[in-house]
């Protein structure tokens, strides 16, 4: 579904990615983990089109999309959930999702009001993520966990083929974390997921396959058990985190 080939990214003198090659199959659930500074955020930003790689290539469903802009990737079925919420703060939850739903049809309808079908879809999605009761609340009035739910709803509203999630459980309480994890776990199996995460419980629970990054390179890749057993990974990363 999505693959990168020898992806490199430099920032001035700093090499954030030193040749990352990975392939995520359609319908797969992949987690990308690694210590701080490993390059996860850089990789994520390249995959979403907000950053251009200094070298290497990215292919989406077989098509070379290296250097393509975020909106072009979105039109090709890529949706993302940001680590720090990117919401429309003064708009209600429903209006937020409605904007997302309306993206597919395009905005150039200057005289017609948004279709009621769009609003119905928005309500359905809010229901799906558990925000049905809060649909008339402005985004900035929602709790942190609710905002994350809304963030997820926005991504799902695009009916994506590939969903990139950047630390979906960031800053959440254990209860909220469980809820979001369940939500993500219950998503359609046909949807390809790539999750960047720190929370190991969530990772081991949701991921079918894990890629471990360290200093801009892939140092291990495999099933959760394989990765858990990998000595290098343990040294570099899990050894510090194991609870």
């Amino acid at each position, binding site marked *: 579904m999505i693959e990168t080939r020898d992806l490199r990214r430099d920032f001035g003198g700093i090499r954030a990615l030193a040749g990352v090659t990975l392939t995520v199959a359609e319908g797969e659930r992949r987690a990308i983990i690694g210590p701080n500074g490993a390059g996860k955020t850089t990789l994520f930003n390249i995959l*979403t089109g*907000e950053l251009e790689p200094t070298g290497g290539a990215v292919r989406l469903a077989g098509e070379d999309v290296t250097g393509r*802009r*975020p*909106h072009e990737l*979105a*039109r090709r079925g890529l*949706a*993302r959930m*940001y680590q720090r919420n*990117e*919401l*429309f*703060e*003064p*708009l209600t939850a429903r*209006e937020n999702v*409605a*904007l*997302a739903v*309306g*993206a*597919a*049809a395009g*905005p*150039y*309808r*200057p*005289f*017609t*009001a*948004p279709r009621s079908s769009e609003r119905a879809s928005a309500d359905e999605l809010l229901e799906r993520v558990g925000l049905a009761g809060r649909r008339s609340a402005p985004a900035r009035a929602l709790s942190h966990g609710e905002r994350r739910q809304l963030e997820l709803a*926005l991504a799902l*509203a*695009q009916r994506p083929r590939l969903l990139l999630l950047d630390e979906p459980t960031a800053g959440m309480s254990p209860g909220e974390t469980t809820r979001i994890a369940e939500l993500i776990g219950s998503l359609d199996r046909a949807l390809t997921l790539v999750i960047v995460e720190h929370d190991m419980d969530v990772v081991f629970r949701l991921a079918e396959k894990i890629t471990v990054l360290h200093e801009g390179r892939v140092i291990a890749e495999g099933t959760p058990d394989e990765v858990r057993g990998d000595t290098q990974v343990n040294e570099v990363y899990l050894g510090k985190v194991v609870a």
Partner: protein
Amino acid sequence: MRSALALLVAVVPAAALVTFPMWSADWESSRYATTILRDMLILAIFALSLDLLVGSAGLPSLGHAAFFGGGAYAAAVVGQRLQNADLALGLAAAVAVSALLALVVGLFAVRAAGIFFLMLTLAFAQMVFAVAFQATDLTGGSNGFSGVRRPTFLGLDFNGPEPLFQLVACVFLLVLALLWRVRGSTYGRALVGLRENERRMRALGYDTTRLKLSAFVLAGAIAGVGGALSAYALRFVSTNDVGVGRSIEAFVSVLIGGTGTLAGPVIGAAMVLYIERVLPSSIPFAETVLGVVFIVFVLAARQGVVGLVRTVYARARR
């Protein structure tokens, strides 16, 4: 249902506005109030068009007069060169010229954001000013273009303070209705999304650059209509109509009145024109007053008069 009711409620003040010269004839035979009101409406059209950028899309343009003046010159020149005072022709020329200008400027300007966008629009508008200043054959240069013909349309002649006022009032109401429709539409919602979180809009698949450009051109076209009306009303177009002062006038109107609303730019335009036209008969330092009022609003009432009213209303409800 709600729109039908709103329409009904709006009809009365609208009719009152259009017929103003008639029922005011007794107490202001000099037509002073009519002229002032007319110019307020023209500035309001200009300010409303600017607010499409500033308030709806979040693009602070400081060069909007380029399109206002462009439309004014277009209407004037077409009327003279083609010896044809037809209103449809004049307005079509105004819209065409201002939209084209907006497209050219916009192609550059929308690639910048925030303060930089502001600077670029200011600079490009000055370029239009320079061209207007130099092209003396076409525009009259620093002397301006005088003797603009009053328009006619389908047998109606708009020469005279009352018919001209009614023309301006009708166009104003049409523009208001148009913008009201646009604000409630999918496009209008998309512009709001653009203002609130451009990054998220891109992530959702909206081509934000194109969206900004479309708003820029639409706003430019409406400004052009305002400019044409100004040319017809004053029978004169000068380089001031494309100058920084005019752009600032509209910006101040929008901010003082309240951005992102329909009432705001209209209220702001009324206030600004009052300070600029009515006040100077009593005091000599009207521009200073305007500057001070603007500063006060930026500091203390950023959401303008509309914002103040909303705050007071909200507080009263509690």
